[in-house]
């Protein structure tokens, strides 16, 4: 039998059982669509994180106590402002060093309240990280030196506390202590469902007094250029290790952060794709099942075809193509559905999604392969049917 003829016969068989074909395809459609959507979301999340880490500013070095690794427990910080001074001496330029000591606090203004992250920082933060002020001004060196109770609000905190007033010059209370608002950040927007404007900056010295601690959670250094970034990191870690011999320190660059996050998100995407793959597998089992039913139903047709000269191979090919056609059509529809759902998710929700060609090619290839794998057994069974027995079937 000619190949084109076999395709036509397979297509006719699918058409004759429209409802059953559609329901069988549904399993494959859902499987392929979920692979496409989940891979798109995984890829979108990865790109979003990359964009943000790069958006922090270039040549950034973050120094934290403990090891930076997947699964490492966060270490209790023993860094202090004295250590920051030591790091500043290593760097040689105070403007390149930023610090943070962060705590979740309720910030109140009048009857309004907002729970947010309050960060104790140095006046260098906007220059080390790329942060822009929307209104007012940022903290000054003198604010830090004198522990002045002044605050710079993130855009959403400002919106929550002062929906109808200019926050500049207003009083807020943080953990019961009054601060004066001197500035508001330009909004950064949301990423991965996290509000990046939900924070308040106060002088680190004021934060220490407020929290009753001397600790520094982390130090960020902007290296003068990319070439010297690793050496600088080594020197900072060496200095801190000298000061705290029993504590381990890590200096990580954006590239390293990107690498770690990329690994995490890669694993996540892989797991999601695997889960979706299982649904595709289940769809394949459905195809196999329906093909076996189809072979049984059409036993007399198989017998007749054999009687008039169909070889086992001709019959097998007919049923195999039917299965492949079923899953390939399901794959195409699933791809369309998946792309549509991913684009809709990207446009209408905070979930980022990016369609990659390889994921489409993979999904289609897998669905066609599923048809072959799960069509082979029913096809072989059909091909091997004894024509005498087949012709007698009810």
């Amino acid at each position: 039998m000619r190949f084109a003829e076999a395709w036509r016969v397979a297509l006719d068989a699918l058409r004759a059982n429209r409802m059953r074909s559609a329901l069988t395809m549904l399993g494959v459609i859902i499987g392929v669509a979920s692979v496409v959507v989940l891979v798109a979301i995984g890829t979108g999340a990865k790109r979003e994180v990359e964009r943000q880490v790069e958006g922090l500013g270039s040549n950034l070095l973050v120094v934290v106590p403990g090891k930076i690794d997947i699964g490492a427990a966060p270490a209790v910080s023993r860094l202090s402002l004295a250590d920051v001074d030591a790091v500043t001496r290593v760097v040689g330029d105070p403007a390149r060093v930023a610090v943070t000591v962060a705590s979740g606090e309720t910030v109140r203004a009048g009857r309004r309240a907002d729970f947010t992250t309050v960060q104790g920082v140095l006046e260098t933060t906007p220059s080390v990280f790329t942060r822009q002020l929307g209104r007012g001004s940022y903290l000054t060196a003198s604010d830090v030196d004198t522990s002045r109770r002044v605050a710079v609000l993130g855009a959403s905190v400002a919106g929550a506390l002062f929906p109808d007033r200019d926050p500049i010059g207003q009083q807020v209370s943080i953990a019961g202590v009054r601060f004066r608002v001197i500035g508001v950040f330009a909004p950064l927007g949301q990423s991965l469902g996290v509000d990046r404007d939900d924070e308040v900056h106060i002088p680190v010295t004021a934060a220490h007094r407020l929290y009753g601690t001397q600790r520094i959670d982390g130090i960020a250094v902007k290296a003068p250029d990319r070439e010297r970034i690793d050496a600088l990191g080594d020197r900072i870690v060496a200095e801190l290790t000298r000061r705290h011999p029993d504590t381990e320190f890590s200096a990580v660059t954006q590239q390293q952060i990107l690498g770690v996050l990329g690994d995490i998100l890669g694993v996540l995407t892989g797991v999601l794709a695997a889960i979706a793959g299982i649904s595709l597998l289940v769809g394949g089992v459905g195809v196999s099942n329906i093909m076996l039913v189809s072979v049984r139903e059409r036993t007399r047709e198989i017998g007749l075809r054999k009687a008039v000269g169909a070889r086992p191979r001709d019959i097998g090919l007919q049923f195999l193509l039917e299965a492949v056609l079923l899953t390939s059509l399901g794959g195409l529809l699933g791809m369309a559905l998946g792309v549509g759902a991913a684009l809709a998710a990207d446009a209408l929700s905070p979930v980022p999604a990016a369609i990659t060609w390889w994921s489409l090619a993979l999904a289609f290839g897998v669905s066609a392969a599923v048809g072959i794998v799960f069509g082979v057994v029913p096809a072989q069974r059909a091909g091997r049917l004894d024509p005498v027995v087949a012709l007698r079937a009810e």
Partner: protein
Amino acid sequence: MTGGLPAGVPAIEAVDVSRTYQLDGVSVPALRGVTLTVDPGDYLAVIGPSGSGKSTLMHLLGGLDRPTGGRLVIGGRDVGSLTPPELATLRNRTIGFVFQAFHLLSRTSAVDNVALPLVYRGMGARQRRERAAAMLGRVGLGHRLDHRPNQLSGGEQQRVAIARALVTDPTVLLADEPTGNLDTVNGQAVLALLEELNTESGVALVLVTHDNEVAGRARRRIAMRDGVVVSDSAAPPGPAEAAAAGGAEPVGGVR
């Protein structure tokens, strides 16, 4: 039209052919040593009660099944030495089947049903349709090419099946109770058609039936009982065979 066989070579030759089925480990003999020759252009009827082995014999003569003993040669080829694909090709080239239940593909037009055997020859669609349409014209259904089986009467459906059996230009036409599902008028017409085709094209006609009246029209009659041939009007029967023939009426030619 003898399928290209040299003169004098039988279309089908069975020598001491037996067929035993294994059912749950028990051997059930359906045929117990049948020797039979079908010559090109023959018109023979195989008759016998149900369970006599006549259907098994027809399956063997048509190459749908293989004997478990003896030698079976179809179109000059020993069935025992052929692989399933080779046997399929042999069926396609030398045998035409007509079944009691017609066995037409229900969702397929008459002309495509007739063309089906040509599909397995790798013939192109247009040529198939031409030959199938010509064959349908020959059986008097030239005006029903694109009708589906459910749009045709039983007699017409069996004519489509006959056209399908003959479109490949076979050596032997095997008809298993071809009138069994038809009323008398349509049954007579179908028989007349088969006989006409046998006379005109020279295709050997093997009619399997339990109907003595139908069998009576054949030039040669083979009576079967319990898996053996009890009489063959082409061969002189022994006294025992003649006595065992029982239900089979003697016809002219039996001595």
